[in-house]
């Protein structure tokens, strides 16, 4: 059982405080929704966890080991997967080739073997291709495997992005607005998929999402940010009735 701990994290950009003293935990197997009005600091917090933004105070730890001083690629290597709001895929490559990119860390061969295409390269590439096939199957994208991303609908691109994270032996998954731009059936499918990977892989998942019915239906717990402060942390039913949370959302609407 792994634990991702956000401890007193603060971020300020030249006098503007994007996050102030935010703390919460994420255990493996838990799905936590990170919500709050625009500008609350949700994406900044995801960036802190994945090593893109360095906290100006506090730290992020994975099972006690500090992550927040490491570069993004190392954080990813430690098992923190990140899926961005807009999938950044190589559009001229196929779905399968894009997924192969995510096998980078599991392919152990060096540059010299690669240049000469030694037998260990063949074996590693075949093993990676098999893992890609499994993920394609899990995503329900087997039939689109050889389409270029350019020819792929937006909803499927987001699935490919999720598939890349799943190929990385991750323990925690950070999702930024996963259902933005998806249609109803795609949303239902994504929900099932997330529940399945939580059950089968024991992933801890942190979701930033604006769609309340989706978040409250999916998550075990909600963490609410407002102007960089954590204002609530608990089960969805309780958090959504919290006067402070209601005020922050009403305030935004007014």
């Amino acid at each position, binding site marked *: 059982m792994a634990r991702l701990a956000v401890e007193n994290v603060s971020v300020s950009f030249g006098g503007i405080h994007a996050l102030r003293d935010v703390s919460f935990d994420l255990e493996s197997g838990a799905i936590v929704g990170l919500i709050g009005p625009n500008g609350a600091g949700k994406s900044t917090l995801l960036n802190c966890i994945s090593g893109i933004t360095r906290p100006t105070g506090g730290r992020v730890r994975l099972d006690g080991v500090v992550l927040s001083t490491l570069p993004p*690629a*190392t954080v990813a290597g430690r098992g923190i997967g990140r899926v961005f709001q807009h999938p950044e895929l190589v559009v001229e490559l196929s779905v399968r080739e894009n997924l*192969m990119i995510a096998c980078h860390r599991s392919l152990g061969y060096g540059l010299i073997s690669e240049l000469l295409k030694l037998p260990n390269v063949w074996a590693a590439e075949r093993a990676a291709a098999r893992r890609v096939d499994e993920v394609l199957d899990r995503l329900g994208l087997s039939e689109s495997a050889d389409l270029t991303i350019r020819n792929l609908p937006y909803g499927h691109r987001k699935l490919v992005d999720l598939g890349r994270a799943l190929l990385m032996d991750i323990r925690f998954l950070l999702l930024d607005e996963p259902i933005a731009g998806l249609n109803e059936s795609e949303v239902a499918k994504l929900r099932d998929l997330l529940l399945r990977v939580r059950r089968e892989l024991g992933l801890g998942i942190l979701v930033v999402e604006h769609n309340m019915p989706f978040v409250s239906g999916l998550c075990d717990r909600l963490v609410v940010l407002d102007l960089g402060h954590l204002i609530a942390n608990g089960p969805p039913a309780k958090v959504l009735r919290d006067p402070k949370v209601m005020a922050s959302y009403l305030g935004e609407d007014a």
Partner: protein
Amino acid sequence: MTVATDIARPRRSLSFGAGALLLGLCFAAACAAPFVLNGYGLYVLTLTGVFALVALGLNLLTGYAGQISLCHAAFFGVGAYATAILTQKAGVPYLLSILAGALFTAAVGAIVAVPAMRLRSLYLAIATLGFGVVLQKIIFEWRSLTNGGGGLALSPPAIAGYELGASGLYFLTLAFVMLGLWGAWNVSRGRTGRALLIVKESEIAAGALGIPAARFKVIAFAISAFYAAVGGGLFAYLVRYIHPENFSVGLSIAFLSMVVIGGLGTIGGSIVGAAFYVIIPELLRGIKDAPGLVFGLLLVIVMVLMPQGLWGLVRRLGRRT
């Protein structure tokens, strides 16, 4: 969720059969060339091979990793001088000198990559332009080693006591081109090539996939400089007189043009681009007064009609067969 299959076509490159046929025909023609061509023709073809090697390496850097370099002429020059100095002054065997020179230049390339970690697009282009000028100046000023503006004259190269004539050097170049093609092909379809493509697309996305963008930019510069230096080592003995002026920014721009005309991010395009750049002006010599004009216009026409480069055309023809 069904995909509209009529608009969504699978990605197709050259079919295996067409590719093998094309490669086989080119190889047969290349082997027959020394027996058909006159001395000058053979020189032009060898030069094409030399430039093709540089273009192969530059395409990995620019087409795959998305890093613009305007100092490849300098890498080419460092490789040429290193090979020449090692053979002529230190008596190191020719092939070993090429390899040592290329490894040295790869290290220089890795140093040039340091600013590339912070800079992108045009800013990087200008920084590499500066590096190119500095390297050329070092070659010029280090007179004790390079003979500065006097240039270096070289005696014919030899391998294992056997003196290489024009066709010997041609076949050596051909062998390096085949090796270089094979290596570039493998890298482009392996772990490194894929990492370079995602670094080009988005360094943040690369980081999220556990791929350190900075390290792969250094690797791309080093591989690319290695290729350029092997080309330089062959070039030195093709022309047998090298001078710092050979390796100016104009040549760097020519290398970049070869890659773009051949097709960015394509391995075969590097060869086609180099061939276009070297051979077309030779064919145009017959047109009196205006070979430069016609060649310049051809560059414009190719870019307008084939933004994917000449290799895009080869691919389209290959698919029909």
